[in-house]
């Protein structure tokens, strides 16, 4: 069964410390928490970008892992929007229509607004059916229609999807809630 297991993991970054002992199974998980709680740090660790100070992060039956950070501009590698979609291994045509970016196909991805870049990156990432998707504040730059679309896409996305966000208005009801509180990740929401 696909799962991400955090076995008595302790993440440290300077003065910051987060303890996580949890299992993320298939489906949508939403991690909330106050400012400075450590959502981004957890996301980075899950993506393999930060080694735990102790404990182990184990990936079970996960062959493809994806991480989308808070700056969509960090993900742009194509010379045009069309090339960018292609760089994810996707056919540009139908996907650009879905993202509402068909009229920007020849544009330089760095010239898009942050909201447009976010639609582009998230759209591509979610279309690539990764076994594990980690999304750091995916709703933040999106407008209301974008948030509604994202909420829907998250609800039907296969594999393990972990979204760090406090925006809960557009989340599907099937989401499993988690919360970072006092330096620990606890199940349950607010």
């Amino acid at each position, binding site marked *: 069964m696909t799962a991400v297991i955090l076995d008595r993991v302790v993440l440290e970054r300077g003065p910051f410390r987060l303890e996580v002992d949890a299992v993320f199974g298939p489906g949508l998980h939403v991690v909330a928490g*106050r*400012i400075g709680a450590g959502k981004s740090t957890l996301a980075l660790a899950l993506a393999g970008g930060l080694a735990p100070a102790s404990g182990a992060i184990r990936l079970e039956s996960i062959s493809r892992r994806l991480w989308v950070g*808070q700056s969509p501009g960090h993900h742009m590698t194509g010379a045009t929007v069309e090339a960018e979609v292609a760089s994810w291994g996707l056919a540009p045509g139908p996907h650009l229509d879905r993202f509402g970016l068909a009229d920007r196909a020849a544009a330089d991805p760095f010239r898009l607004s942050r909201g*447009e870049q976010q639609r582009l990156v998230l759209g591509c990432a979610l279309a690539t059916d990764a076994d594990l998707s980690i999304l750091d*504040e995916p709703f933040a*730059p999106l407008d*209301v229609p*974008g948030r*509604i*679309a994202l909420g829907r896409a998250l609800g039907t996305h296969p594999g393990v999807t972990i979204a760090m966000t406090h925006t809960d208005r557009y989340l599907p009801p099937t989401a499993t809630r988690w919360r970072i509180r006092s330096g620990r990740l606890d199940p349950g929401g607010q």
Partner: protein
Amino acid sequence: MIELSAVSARNLRVDRLEIPPGLTAVIGMNGAGKTTLLELCCGLLLPDAGAVLVDGQPPRETDAALVPAFPGPALVFSRVADELASSGRFAGLPPDEVAGRVAAAADAVGVRPLLGRSTRSLSGGEQFMVSLAAALASRPLVLVLDEFDGVLDRESLADLLPAVRATGARYVLLSTHEPALAALADQAVALADGRVAATGAAACALFDAWENAA
């Protein structure tokens, strides 16, 4: 009153818009022109045509502050205290007065515990709070918050909003995608395709329209 007359900038075209003092929410879809409007009101951007006046003066001649969308440019200095002190120091104020402003702003936003920290060690959300405190420390007439709710959770927002109102900034403009936040404002301006689509209650009603359309 903030007055825009016959303004043209980027994709924004405004015939006439008046923004009274208080908390104003600017809403609209991505690309509608929210950031352009906000930057015009604080003087960061000059219009290609037309005039923007804040209490009869161009924004650049008043004290204005901007807290950019997250993740923003982060911070200028390596010490949090220096960041909050910067506007006072640039103005040539004596160190005691600067220290007073720093303390007041830090308390208003709740970042006193962070004052001795290195800006590089802060989380993204903490950097935003410091950026907000630095903006407040400049005692602005116009305070602009771009995508204010981008990274703040509900509790932090609830704590911050009264503080933001109480700063003494005559005009506080913030852009948001959250209907709940827009409802808390004194007035709202909705933009669509670079034009003012609605103001007041009609603006907030647009949220329902967007949600029902999807």
